[in-house]
């Protein structure tokens, strides 16, 4: 168990989340995939803060900020999805062409 193992795990989880973002059509599932990606970033930051020679707790603090911003992002995204569902009764991303021209 060394830093490289955590990095590989983090890269794998980030890629799984990216696959979900690109391959799924449902807006809620895209949101879940983004959460997986944010978690992968947090694993990476905490692993570095635990293994790196300097700046021991700074990585954990940045991870806390990421968690906070992710919580705000989930709240806002839920509001947008609820609004979209009320207006168009669909959360399919292919149906959402409001800002296309």
């Amino acid at each position, binding site marked *: 168990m060394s830093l490289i193992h955590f990095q590989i795990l983090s*890269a794998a989880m980030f890629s799984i989340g990216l696959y979900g973002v690109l391959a799924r059509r449902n807006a*809620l599932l895209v949101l879940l995939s983004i959460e997986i990606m944010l978690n992968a970033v*947090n694993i990476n930051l905490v692993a570095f803060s635990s293994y790196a020679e300097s700046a021991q707790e700074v990585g954990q603090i940045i991870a806390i900020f990421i968690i906070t911003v992710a919580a705000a992002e989930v709240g806002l995204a839920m509001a947008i999805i609820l609004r979209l569902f009320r207006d168009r009764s669909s959360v399919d991303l292919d149906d959402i062409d409001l800002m296309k021209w």
Partner: protein
Amino acid sequence: MSLLDIIFGVISLVAIASAISVVNQRDIFRAALFLVVSFLAVAALFVLLNAEFLAVVQVLVYVGAVSILIIFAIMLTSNVQTGSTSHGFSPLILILVAALTALIVSTAISTDWNTWDSKGFEVSPGGTEEDLSNTEQGIKNVFSNTTVVISTLIMTRFVLPMEVVSVVLLAAVIGALALVRDTEVES
């Protein structure tokens, strides 16, 4: 191979398997439940990395709040029975994602990270073998008081980002309320 390695392997297997189930699941509700499993595995990884405070925050915020919010949104919006369509098995996306993983991993391996173990110290996070034989010192090192350090740093060096983040949270709350409010009510 020590006990910690086995625990790490099991936890990372759970994390990756549940993450794959999230992106492959047709049923959105099941995907949300697998996401909770993935969050819990990440919290266990934080404990392995001596970040107990962050593990508790992870369980409180993600498992406690975010997953409940997501499940509420699933109940309110989509038709749970029909499931969600995906773009199907797309080889292009898979190749892209695999290439990205290979790039990240090869970069991580070839970089000379300035870590404790690269300098020849026999250190795992959580104290050395010597610490473990000396019980009192070992307990102090294994349960390092990260909460005190984190709170001190947040209140001194990171006080400006903390204030900015609180403004972000306030803006998110107001924005969410403004978005879901009925426009007919005010007119």
